[in-house]
């Protein structure tokens, strides 16, 4: 399933790297707002559900090779985050839903997390 295919289900809007979202296969998911934790525990191809909208979110997603970022609670990215996401071709989606809802919907679509230990 591509990231673009999940967007309607989570009531999201793609704000950056639209064409990339249609290409990217989502292989798993991770929820977290502590970026050091996300760096330690997420994996390549994950969709990342977070409330953090700092520009470093893009850097972490890029570093981990993630499929994209979902900002929950209607959070709008900072302009420099959007700019960086376009440059790095990291899709950014904003949704009014909360993280728990988004994770539940993605899970029902067959997207899974993994055990950390």
């Amino acid at each position, binding site marked *: 399933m591509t990231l673009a295919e999940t967007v309607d289900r989570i009531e999201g809007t793609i704000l950056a790297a639209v064409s990339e979202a249609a290409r990217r296969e989502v292989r798993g998911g991770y929820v977290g707002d502590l970026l*050091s934790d996300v*760096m330690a525990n997420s994996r390549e191809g994950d969709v990342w559900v977070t409330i953090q909208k*700092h520009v470093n979110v893009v850097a*972490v997603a890029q570093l981990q090779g993630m499929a994209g970022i979902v900002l929950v609670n209607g959070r709008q990215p900072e302009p420099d985050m959007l700019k960086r996401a376009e440059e790095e071709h990291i899709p950014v989606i904003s949704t009014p839903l909360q993280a728990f809802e988004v994770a539940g919907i993605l899970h029902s679509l067959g997207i899974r997390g993994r055990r950390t230990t």
Partner: protein
Amino acid sequence: MYALDLHTHTCLSPCAELDMHPAGLVGAAVRATLDAVAVCDHNSAENIAATQRAGRSGSLAVIPGMEVTSEEEVHILGLFPDLESALAMQSRVYRSLPGRNDPDVFGMQVVADEYAQVLGFNDCLLSGATTMSVERVVSSIHDVGGIAVASHVDRERFGIIGQLGMIPAGLALDGLEVSARTSLPAARTRYAREVEYPLLCNSDAHEPKDVGRALTYMFLQEPTTTEVAMALAGRNGRKILGGGRPMEDLALHILDIAQNSIEAGATELDIELAEEIAADQFVIEVRDNGPGMDAESLARATDPFFTTRKTRRVGLGLPLLAEAARAAGGGLSIDSKPGAGVRVRATFRHGHIDRAPLGDIETTLMVLVAGHPDLRLRFRHQIGEREFELDSGDLRAALEDAELGSPEGLALLRETIRRGESGLAREAGGQARSES
């Protein structure tokens, strides 16, 4: 030379103890023999003025500060040149700080005077996050004339690296702080990528017993924010000499003993560290050429209530080192005769679980030389077959025109120690256990 703890809280911070009222904080700082503390309550400056007044009666410099929570829940310390500047920052913070405090949930936020009288309660949600991004927090601190330091970068929660994964590129921080949980050498290794930022050690004390548990030594003309800013930038001869944890790091016990020697009149000092990892042995020896001690003083030297000093004490010295040695399966011995100097020898089991970390010997040597440029200091650190030796006489000779206590002299000293110690660490390879 000044000992500063630039991150302490008062009872205004909801997470701090009530006995951290302004006078309580000042009393704890004086007992810890600090020269200055910065009052850095969460998102508020309302107890600074009273702490400054309390500090004046205790001859303690009180630097206005604030620990601001960014929108990303990163803690940034602002240190301000004066109260007005701190209050200007407070106005900006209050405008971007949503919510009201619930004292039953988060704790009381007590505004107090210098006589421990309660003046009132702050009802902002000081434990909450502002709506300012970390970049806005840093630029606001700079706008009002302050300096910005990332708080406790060694903590996952509220530390900038924990919250944001890395320090954002181009963030105009003036320094990074490590807390009492990390020694300075461990911090230098761990944050090697962020090494362009100067490192500070502060206690982040929320109760009196923790004030000064971590501190930074700086070479300043006076303990003010303006001078600290110069030290962080390495300007005008102001300098960060080092830092650490006086209750824990063996290097700071050594510093204390060495300062005792100098105050007693020693002009020459030998400090030797011998680490035999295979034999599970760690020996510290400090020798001086001072006036020595008679039998009675010698017998009482490890009594914590005994001191020959007329001036203030820097730490607990010998009793603390004796305790640290005993806890690590070793012991302490002192040899001295009147007129024949003093030799202190502490032994430890190297791999003992309770053996205190060495900490930062660079700090010890830098503080000694900066404070006593005429001291003849010889240092020897041996790990197994390898050793690093340093003689202040050789450095003085190499300097030609400049004094050893000058910025050039201290830079040469620091470079020599770093080269020697990192060479030792490399040679010792994986033998030495990692210390934090």
